[in-house]
């Protein structure tokens, strides 16, 4: 898998120097790194899409938007990418923690500084989006797991609700839960598996989903299921702070 690395620096010679160090690292470690260069923050933000770049090297002092301002904007869109500041500025160390930077390299830096930053970033890359593949009406359908709202079993069939579509497959709920393999999914009923990221709120003995659908909570395990959901949202709320 190729990892997308971005370098944003207003000075072409600095871009080239850092790009060269990244290439040396890639060859030494035998990893595939795709490099993209930007010479300003506005240009970078125009091209930026969540998930497009995994590692970002940002200069701080640039004409127009500073690297720190760019990092703040990026963090609103993408919390998973690794941000490494590569700069002459030694004033932004404290702010760098606010944007959860992975490293802070002060120019002139050495090859081993870049190596160590990239080693850490590659070790801590977030998981890529995962898909669940099922056979539906003799066709193979891949569903982005994070887009699944809930799964409902009716008879021997599983209805996979994504909010935009319902895919029907001849699969059991336990088997699907294992294939999904995510702690974000909760078995809230004998016939329902729910993605807690898509629950808007609890309403009586049901979950109200983003799509407006109501998913029932098992009457025999209500307390345990409510508690698991509350604990899950509690952890998410803290992590989002």
């Amino acid at each position, binding site marked *: 898998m190729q990892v997308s690395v971005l370098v944003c620096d207003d000075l072409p010679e600095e871009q080239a120097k850092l790009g060269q160090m990244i290439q040396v690292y890639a060859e030494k470690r035998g990893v595939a790194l795709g490099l993209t260069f930007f010479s300003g923050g506005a240009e970078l933000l125009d091209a930026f899409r969540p998930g497009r770049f995994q590692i970002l090297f940002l200069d701080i002092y640039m004409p127009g938007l500073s690297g720190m301002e760019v990092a703040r904007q990026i963090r609103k869109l993408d919390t998973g990418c690794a941000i490494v500041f590569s700069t002459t500025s*030694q*004033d*932004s*160390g*404290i702010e*760098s*923690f*606010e944007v*959860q*930077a*992975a*490293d*802070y390299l*002060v120019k002139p830096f050495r090859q081993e500084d870049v190596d160590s930053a990239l080693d*850490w970033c590659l070790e801590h890359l977030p998981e890529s989006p995962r898909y669940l593949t099922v056979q539906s009406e003799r066709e193979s359908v891949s569903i982005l797991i994070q887009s699944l709202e809930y799964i409902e079993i009716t008879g021997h069939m599983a209805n996979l609700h994504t909010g935009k579509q319902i895919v029907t497959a001849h699969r059991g709920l336990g088997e699907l839960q294992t294939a999904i393999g995510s702690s974000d999914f909760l078995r809230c009923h004998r016939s329902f598996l729910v993605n807690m990221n898509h629950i808007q*709120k*609890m*309403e*009586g*003995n049901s979950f109200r989903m983003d799509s407006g659908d109501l998913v029932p909570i098992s009457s025999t395990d*209500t*307390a345990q299921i*409510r*508690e698991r*959901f*509350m604990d899950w*949202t*509690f*952890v998410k*709320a*803290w*992590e989002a*702070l």
Partner: protein
Amino acid sequence: MEQIIKQGAVSFGLCSPDCVFSDDLAQALRIWSDNVCADVVLCVWSDCASFLADGQTSECAVLFLDADGGEFPSPAALRESPWRGALLLCSVSAHSAIHSYVFHPDGFVSKPVTAAALERPLARCFPRWQGALRRLEVFSERTRLRIPMCDLIWAEACGRSCILHVPQGAFPAGVSLLELTELLPGESFLRCQKSFLINLYRVRSADGKAFRMSDGGRVPIGRDCRDAALAALAAYQARWSGKAR
């Protein structure tokens, strides 16, 4: 039977030779733990070498390391030790913050330390101290709920019971507002009207008539306790931001 569940205090540690900073951090941590209703204890070592030599380090969930005083440990010494908690570097300088990246800490605490300044770094290592949270156990529609106390945003009386407003929705609870008030810590919870109780930690704004809560709820302030309620909020916020101790 409604009750508070204490799961046991979680240990935090500090390595610093600076007694003034140790006192400041202990004070800020006390205010923070009151606000999030968590039971934590702080153990202090004069330097990181003493911490690493101590046989009890594995119990330390979160370690604050003072980057402005004493010998800095080598990253390898920390990596090779049995300790596996969250590391928060504390310093007054941007230069120390940059230097601290060799440890890849979980967060950075800028000095002078306040309870508010601890909030985000500690949130990032939440799984490490989650067990410190005090929970309120209540019965709701014949099912038992164990709500982290700081998750309770506000509550309103409803006959002899009350309705609890938490981020996940609203639940009827088989406990009166008076009983609930007695179960919750007075530092963070305020009875702002005969029929309403609020969590000060969850107040987003206030005018003379109501508190606007983090879930968007508007909770009225009783006419007879308006001044006292607003003063309690002001005192709470001053304590939180370090403007008052």
